[in-house]
């Protein structure tokens, strides 16, 4: 013991009261000890003072030189029940925008929806989503949303609107005028009921369903064949041979998420599956579906009917009927017919045409092949796309004749997407009462008197029946942000029913849907379960007896015989995977989403074949006009049929908001009615080269793999013979993988990801999901042109073979989380390091932005914040945000678990480390090991093809380990010994070599 000076003996003795105090303090006694220790410390000396002073001044100087902007955070005064800060809640809901459907889960953090996930309980979409569904959460925070009801463009109150509208409706009703309710296909049973109730109060109401991308051709053809207009349920999973004529069923045709799930199920060669379907695509333009086909046959759209007629002819001949004489086509339909006959009752022929006669030919083909009730179910029908084009035509002429007194527009936008837009506009002027119920500012509502803004679907109660017996519910995940009201509620209110729509739906379900259950539970239990699951599947069938008659088909066949294959240029108007019909064009995520085929974003353009481009002497970005009316830049697209050009619909919005306004050109006016239905193909167009060029934003400008084995593929035949086929190089490479250094080992978890290239269709849902989950900034067209897009995951697309008719391969690439990462050792400040779970991690606030890591990344997946894209920079006034993503409203979509990055910082895929941590915590609190498949990164969650598998590589039974053990597995650029944690399974095409 040290020498101690003391004043008295008492001082030397230990104070017993202290001990008592410590004992009574129990666990907290260390605090007392600490207090005493600090009290016992010698007082601050002059030197200490100077040290502290110097440090304070220095740190104050440093701190003040990089001041961070002050952001206000206001805590809850009263903690709401069920909201735990930092913990997300999920609500089951339904996405339906009049065109597409997905059963979804809405992730809500601190009261705001921030992410959409697929609902795996639904047997229709089975947890899959597409890009637009993923992006729909951002529409909730659209700057261009209507905030209050409006009359003639000025703010008003609901009471005022209700009073005036009801007055006018009554007046029209009394004088027996005509009220038209214009909507897209309604799949919500409760909404249908509400509309019926409205029509009962106002018997003069007529409901017109107007589908932008309609299926009138199929509806009318089926009406002729079956006596009932319906869209059947296609079963791509049951077909061994899929033949598609211009139907982009993986991208835009009818129900792409559902079809992708089915399609891929039959083509994945994992878990012992050895069988895969064969897919043959006949098309003029290069579509997402076409690029995935085993065989892709070029066919000009104007030849489609003749090709189908020839095919039917051959099939008939094979069936023993007399072969009719008709003009020949260049495509080999004879062997196709033979192939189809081989797969009788296990084939599926689909056609994207919207022409009744063409669809009648397809019906007859499927009938001959015995596909009905097997791969085409007629007792379960698709309830979306019920709109008959001629009804809309009729409505417009009635409006022009002044026969319509009131028009109530339910979230459709004919002033943008109706082909004869001037005629509609003229007619609209003659309608006395015009009411619109949009969510976001659009062209149509700009021309009406009353705007009664609807809720966004994430704010509203709703239900849906997408297919017979497949019900789902939508519930609000946030209180309405603005002074909006559910459209159904507006209608009900005008009809004098003041029940709120939630109660209305619940009543409807009690009366009409609950009886379809076995009734074991009470209604409340049933309702709660449905609300929790988001879905209810009754298993019911459409009971209408359907008998096939081929009279109409024969007639169509006879008329097709007379047609000839003309030598004209055809224009295909398609809807792409990003903005689609244009309804969601005002969504920065979607605008910046590169097209899976052209890799271009932020515009529409003319896709033109290399041969035609040579003839016209044009190169990319050259302006070309179509029929002298629309001038657009061209993209020379390998694989495009010689005389087929294609332009995407959905662009050229004028009256919505930033960023959609003025992006691209509106091609809807080029659509025309052929035989009563909208034709998405325009035959015989004139192209003229115009002066000048127009820059296009592309995220990939080199299209050849340069002979490198980046995407490895093989044929099914070769694969069955040797599973290693196409991947032989790997064995060679593995032999040479030697290092002087000890191999990295990971004790507990070692995260890895496997991607089945055979499953990935390139739909881009993962890209949007990633942006949404990880707050990936949107940079705008100029920055994409400068090759600075920020996407953490990209889908590389390469062409193979003849540029006029190439094969297409795709590969999603994100950070490969190399266990021997070239990026990590070059960072001078150790801002990027390897975690003990094998993650390559970024410490954003340590990064000083030398970009050395990005240069040294062989996969080029690191992204640099070249400008202040997010407003997170410490300087003010230098934010670069051409797409208005940093407004207070849009910022609500940010995921609070992921830091927004400031200017000058590198960022990249983190394997959704926030999700990993979250699930680890859950496992820890439940005192158990993490289960395989528990952690799902955003990309894997969104993937409708289930192409991405994530898990623990240390667990030999995990799915990802099994994938890694597969002979098909390889790693990208494995030969440079980066030891990536991402594996790819070779692509297998069902092709005869």
């Amino acid at each position, binding site marked *: 013991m040290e020498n101690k000076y003391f004043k008295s003996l008492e001082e030397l003795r230990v104070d017993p009261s202290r001990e008592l105090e410590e004992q009574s303090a129990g666990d907290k006694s260390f605090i007392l000890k600490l207090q005493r220790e600090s009290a016992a410390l010698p007082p601050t000396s002059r030197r200490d003072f100077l040290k502290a002073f110097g440090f304070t001044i220095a740190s104050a100087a440093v701190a003040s*030189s*990089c001041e961070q902007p002050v952001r206000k955070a206001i805590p809850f005064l009263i903690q709401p029940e069920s909201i735990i800060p930092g913990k997300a809640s999920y609500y089951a809901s339904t996405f339906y925008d009049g065109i597409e459907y997905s059963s979804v889960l809405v992730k809500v953090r601190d009261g705001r929806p921030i992410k959409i996930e697929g609902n795996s309980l639904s047997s229709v979409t089975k947890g899959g989503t597409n890009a637009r569904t993923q992006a729909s959460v951002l529409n909730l925070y659209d700057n261009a949303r209507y905030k209050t009801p409006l009359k003639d463009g000025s703010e008003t109150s609901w009471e005022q609107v209700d009073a005036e509208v009801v007055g006018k409706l009554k007046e029209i009703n009394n004088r027996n005028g005509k009220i038209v309710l214009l909507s897209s296909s309604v799949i919500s049973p409760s909404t249908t009921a509400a509309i019926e109730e409205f029509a009962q109060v106002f018997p003069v109401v007529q409901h017109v369903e107007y589908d932008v991308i309609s299926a009138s051709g199929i509806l009318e053809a089926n009406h002729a064949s079956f006596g009932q207009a319906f869209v059947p349920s296609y079963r791509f999973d049951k077909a061994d041979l899929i033949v598609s004529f211009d139907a982009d069923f993986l991208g835009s045709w009818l129900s792409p998420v559902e079809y992708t799930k089915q399609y891929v199920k039959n083509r994945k060669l994992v878990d012992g599956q050895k069988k895969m379907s064969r897919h043959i695509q006949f098309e003029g333009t290069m579509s997402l579906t076409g690029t995935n086909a085993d065989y892709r046959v070029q066919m000009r759209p104007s030849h489609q009917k003749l090709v189908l007629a020839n095919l039917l002819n051959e099939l008939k001949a094979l069936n023993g009927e007399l072969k009719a004489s008709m003009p020949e086509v260049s495509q080999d339909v004879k062997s196709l017919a033979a192939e189809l006959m081989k797969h009788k009752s296990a084939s599926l022929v689909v056609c994207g045409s919207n022409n009744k006669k063409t669809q009648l030919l397809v019906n007859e083909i499927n009938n001959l092949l015995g596909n009905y009730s097997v791969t085409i179910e007629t007792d379960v029908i698709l309830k979306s796309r019920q709109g008959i084009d001629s009804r809309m035509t009729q409505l417009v002429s009635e409006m022009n004749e002044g026969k319509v007194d009131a028009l109530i527009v339910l979230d459709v936008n004919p002033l943008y997407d109706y082909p004869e837009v001037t005629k509609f506009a003229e007619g609209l002027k003659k309608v006395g009462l015009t009411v619109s119920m949009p969510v976001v500012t659009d062209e149509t509502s700009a021309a009406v008197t009353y705007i009664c803004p609807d809720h966004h679907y994430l704010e509203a109660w709703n239900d849906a029946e997408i297919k017979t017996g497949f019900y789902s519910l939508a519930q609000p995940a946030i209180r309405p942000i603005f002074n909006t009201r559910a459209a159904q509620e507006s209608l009900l209110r005008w009809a004098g029913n003041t029940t709120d729509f939630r109660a209305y739906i619940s009543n409807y379900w009690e009366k009409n849907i609950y009886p379809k259950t076995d009734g074991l539970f009470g209604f409340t239990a049933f309702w709660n379960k449905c609300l929790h699951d988001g879905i209810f599947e009754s298993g019911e069938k459409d009971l209408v007896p359907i008998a096939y008659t081929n009279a109409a088909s024969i007639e169509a066949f006879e008329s097709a015989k007379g047609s000839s294959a003309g030598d004209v240029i055809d224009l295909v108007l398609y809807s792409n995977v990003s903005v689609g019909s244009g309804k969601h064009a005002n969504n920065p995520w979607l605008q910046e989403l590169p097209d899976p085929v052209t890799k271009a974003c932020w515009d529409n353009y003319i896709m033109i074949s290399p041969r035609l481009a040579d003839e016209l002497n044009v190169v990319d970005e050259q302006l070309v006009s179509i029929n002298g009316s629309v001038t657009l830049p061209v993209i020379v697209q390998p694989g495009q049929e010689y005389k087929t050009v294609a332009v995407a619909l959905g662009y050229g919005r004028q009256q919505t908001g930033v960023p959609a306004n003025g992006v691209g050109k509106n091609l809807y006016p080029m659509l025309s009615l052929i035989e009563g239905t909208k034709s998405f193909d325009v035959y015989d167009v004139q192209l003229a080269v115009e002066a000048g060029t127009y820059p296009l934003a592309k995220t*990939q*400008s*080199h*299209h*050849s*793999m*340069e002979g*490198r084995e*980046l995407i490895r593929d093989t044929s099914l035949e070769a694969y069955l013979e040797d599973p290693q086929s196409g991947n032989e190089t790997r064995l060679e490479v593995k032999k040479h993988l030697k290092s002087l250094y000890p191999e990295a080992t990971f004790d507990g978890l070692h995260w890895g990801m496997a991607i089945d290239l055979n499953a990935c269709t390139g739909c881009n849902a993962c890209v949007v999901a990633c942006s949404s989950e990880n707050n990936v900034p949107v940079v705008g067209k100029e*920055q994409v042109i*400068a*090759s*600075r897009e920020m996407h953490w995951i*990209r889908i*590389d*697309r*390469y062409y193979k073979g003849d540029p006029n008719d190439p094969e297409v391969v795709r590969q999603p*690439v994100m950070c490969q989380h190399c266990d021997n990462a*070239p990026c990590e*050792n*070059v*960072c*001078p*400040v*150790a801002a990027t390091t390897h975690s003990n779970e094998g993650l390559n991690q970024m410490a954003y606030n*340590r*990064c*000083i*932005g*030398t*970009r*050395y890591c*990005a*240069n*040294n990344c*062989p*996969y*080029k997946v*690191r*992204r*640099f*914040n*070249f*400008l*202040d894209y997010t407003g997170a*920079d*410490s*300087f003010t006034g*230098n934010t*670069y945000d051409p797409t208005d993503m940093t407004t207070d409203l849009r910022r609500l979509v940010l995921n609070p678990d992921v830091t927004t990055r*400031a*200017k*000058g*910082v590198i960022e990249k895929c983190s394997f959704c480390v926030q999700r990993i941590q979250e699930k680890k915590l859950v496992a820890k609190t439940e005192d158990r090991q993490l289960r395989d498949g528990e952690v799902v990164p955003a990309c894997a969650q969104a993937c409708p093809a289930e192409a991405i598998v994530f898990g623990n590589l240390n667990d030999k039974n995990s799915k990802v380990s099994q994938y890694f053990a597969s002979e098909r597995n390889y790693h*990208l*650029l494995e030969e*440079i010994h*980066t030891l990536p944690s991402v594996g790819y399974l070779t692509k297998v095409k069902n092709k005869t070599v």
Partner: protein
Amino acid sequence: MYVSPLREPLIRGSKDYSQVTKDILAPMAGKPSKYWYMGITLSGAAALFGAWATFMTVYYGIGTWGLNKTVGWAWDITNFVWWVGIGHAGTFISAILLLFRQKWRTSINRSAEAMTLIAIACAGFFPLIHMGRLLLGFFILPYPNTRALWVNFNSPLLWDVFAITTYLLVSLVFWYIGLIPDLGTVRDKASNKIRKAIYGFLSFGWTGSAKHWSRHETVSLILAGLAAPLVLSVHTIVSFDFATSVIPGWHTTIFPPYFVSGAVFSGFAMVLTLLIVTRKALNLEEYITVGHIENMNKVIIITGSIVGIAYITEFFMAWYSGVEYEQYAFINRATGPYAWAYWIMMTCNVITPQLFWFKKIRTNLVATFIISIFVNIGMWFERFVIVVTSLHRDYLPSSWVMYKPTIVEIGLYVGTLGLFFTLFLLFIRVFPVIAIAEVKSVLKSSGDNKKDSHHE
């Protein structure tokens, strides 16, 4: 009959010691010429352009440059390596030539060293400005902090930090030590009180005593010994930035010697460019003679040839290695979209210096001046070719892009050129451009009695 030639005198003209002092101090005295004013206005304007570009970069971000997701370095690192290379001549001349007892270096070492310092300052500017978050640039220093954060000693960028700062400090000290006797001279010759006080302070009380001289010589020799390996190490380490990476075209073991000879090559070219003008403008033709120029041209032939061989070796290795990425990188250099840059480099660095094999050309001032400019350009393009053409097409063709500089990047480059010339112009007004004391030591090297016969 072979008559052994007389040794060429290093200094022309019949000079005595006081004449030497007078000649060399002349540019410092009186008002500067109008050419000086024109020069400093022009270079000052260029420096201001650079200041604007710096502001744009720091305030708006690196996005004001032409970089993108694939090409993360371009003009910034090109300029950095170029300037570092230029900064090699001075120390090479004063340290390595001192150790090799090359007395002719005395006429040029002062200005070459000054040029080195300024070039290193210009070079150091680029690693700083290329940081996305310049204000946090101090993270790169291994300073103790409460967050227990430490730098990554595996990173060549960190090695750069040490290499460059060490080189700058040693060069600065070496240069200043050499200046001290001359500063004493300037002080003694000063007529005005303030000037006397300033130079008196700067000369650290130099008296010229034997003891001072002895210490001065010893320190100089020690520093020369220290600086000599640095000449080799700095560019070796700079080349590690590339050589240790995985990018085809960067990942090459030949880089250290290749970079060092390239650096000396470009350094000598820049010295020539500057001195050919300086000797004329400051009437120092008798001190910096054609003999000096010729000697330097010989260094250029040697280093230029090494560089040329290195270029060819790279191609050989790309073929010999059998690595397809490597092979593509070099084919792309010579035939790809940036082939023009490659061929400028080849012409300027490999072909033009070979003209110096002709005595007529290497003793011709105009030709030397033009070729020195060519070498400067060629060496800039060498770095551009290495940095940009390697990056813009590496492993995955999906990420292949093109790079184009913006006005801001041009501004930064022009700005450093402006800074370089501004500082050099100030240097010739403030310090003796030739080491007076050292020149005096070689004045009699060829014998006094013969000096008239060589006076042409």
